[in-house]
């Protein structure tokens, strides 16, 4: 593949992009912001959150900018009515299901897109998992705050650590990140590297000292 830049039409601007880069990268290089949730610069993009979808003329569906590669003369709209509706509804549904109180970036997005998480009513089913899991000396897991972005699963697997301690339980709305057969962390292959805590965007995973400090007002004694 040649490295000669190709012209891509993004929001009616001609952007010259290196072949093989993503729409997200091309847009950002041109100063056009596309929101992301699950995307992380150092991890494999899985395009699960779909908040980065853009309208690619000629495509039946919207296209996730984090994985779609630029093509010559593609006409792409990153902020059309159709795109904004999809983003707003995804945010509304997410915020109505999950505790986003420790996810400031998502709070900003909710405001920016005018999302109303309360539109589904007061009796809406939330994704609740019961008590915070405190089963090891290093970190806690508060899955009521988990948005299923997959980052922790990926750093635990092929993207970083190759320990494969984290996977999935359940299906659909009831999907959750879990250890094998929900075993406590010390009984898994976890090596307590902390990478999962580092990439968690919502406070679902956090250091135990930080958690205890918030609970008791002071850090735990060693």
């Amino acid at each position, binding site marked *: 593949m040649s490295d000669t830049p190709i012209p891509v039409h993004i929001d009616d601007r001609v952007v010259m992009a290196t072949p093989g880069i993503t729409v997200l990268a091309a847009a950002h290089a041109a100063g056009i912001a596309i929101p992301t949730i699950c995307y992380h610069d150092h991890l494999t993009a899985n395009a699960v959150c779909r908040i980065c979808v853009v309208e690619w003329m000629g495509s039946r569906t919207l296209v996730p900018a984090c994985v779609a590669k630029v093509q010559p003369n593609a006409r792409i709209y990153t902020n059309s009515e159709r795109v904004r509706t*999809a983003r707003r509804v*995804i945010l509304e549904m997410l915020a109505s299901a999950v505790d986003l109180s420790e996810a400031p970036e998502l709070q900003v997005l909710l405001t920016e897109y005018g999302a109303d998480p309360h539109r589904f009513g007061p009796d809406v089913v939330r994704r609740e998992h019961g008590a915070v899991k405190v089963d090891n000396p290093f970190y806690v897991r508060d899955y009521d705050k988990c948005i299923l972005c997959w980052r922790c699963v990926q750093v635990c697997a092929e993207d970083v650590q190759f320990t494969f301690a984290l996977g999935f339980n359940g299906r659909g709305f009831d999907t959750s990140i879990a250890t094998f057969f929900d075993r406590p962390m010390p009984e898994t292959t976890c090596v307590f590297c902390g990478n999962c805590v580092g990439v968690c965007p919502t406070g679902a995973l956090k250091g135990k000292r930080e958690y205890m400090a918030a609970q008791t007002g002071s850090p735990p004694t060693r």
Partner: protein
Amino acid sequence: MSYQPVLTARLGKIDPASLSDYEAAGGFQALARAMELGPKAVVELLREAYLLGRGGAAFPAGIKWKAVSEAPAPKYVIANADESEPGTFKDRILMEGDPFALVEAVIIAAFAVGAEQGYIYIRGEYPLAIARVQHAVNACYNAGYLGHDILGTGFHFDLEVRKGAGAYICGEETALFESIEGKRGFPRLKPPFPTEYGLFGRPTVINNVETLLCVLPLVLRGLEWFRNIGPEKSPGPKLYCLSGRVQRPGLVEAPMGTTLRTLIYDYGGGVTGSGELGGVLLGGAAGVFVGPEHLDVPLDFAGLRSIDAVLGSGVVMVFDTSVDMKAVLRRIARFFRHESCGKCYPCQLGTQRQYEIVERLATDRLRPGDLLALREIGQTMRDASICGLGQTASGAVLSALDRLGYDEVSNRFARFNENEGVLSPASGLSSPLELYSHVGHPHPSSH
């Protein structure tokens, strides 16, 4: 009605466990013919026949075969027999009644594209189909149709039967690959497509059972015969899964492009219940509803696209006007809530929220803003989901609201009386045994 069934011709007439029965009824003549023609000619034949995939997506099978035939080995062929679309039962009947035909068709596919390993992935809830296809595979190994040096041609091909474990999503081709690889059945991002990056990351041909079975008569009878059946743009025989409120539900083999009227009144013997047609669900839960005004639209891919409907896997589920349509929609919404795999946000969250609103609709507890939310959720799932499951999860619900006389103010489907419950087995969804009894045989019109 001069059409002579070919896909269902052997059903009920041969012992599905007998290879010699199958051979005596013309079995393995297509393989012999394919081997005379050679791989290139078979792929060309498929391309020129314009055989469109019968599993639901209607992708030209010849394009898949050609791409994989030109790709480097190792490569795979897979029969997608994870038939899970509600209302679909064609592949089950074919596998239970004529399992050798599927094995022969997979061997031809492997021969044409140069694959040395194949899989038949069968829905776990089909124990009889699994047993019969497995038996057929074993018998073919013993007879030299599978394994080393098939029929003395030097062609080598191994074929394995794999069972699904109950997830609807595993019928999606890339989730099916993950399942065979021993992983959780999450759909992959496309591109790359299976012809380039399929099972174990290798070029893969994956076709629905019915699509593969179409290859047998195509090879034996030739291009002209095939293209003279049905419409020019999507020719060939088609299996329609006729169910619901009709006198004679069952499997119908007819030319592609047969009209709803012919299916319901000539093959099905007319509408039962109130006797008045209320609506038809085409393509299953992932399909769309059409009303009685569409009785004369040809049921082929292009014809249905023109009225914003789909043929899907060939489901024709008939509802009379005494059906509680709101309860039907609740059942469909519950199905998608249950079967969403949970990978992408629009479907993972949207199938739950859709179910909650449809539940309120069905129990007359709708709140202001609910219907707008339902539409926006539907649009978001259709536009932004990763795979076909999420993209189609709102189609039935929204098409029912748009086409079946739904009135927002009264929250009623004007055409439906709501004086009965949802379809029960006794009211038309037949047992498989009953389905066998009139496979492929049109009945005199009763209208």
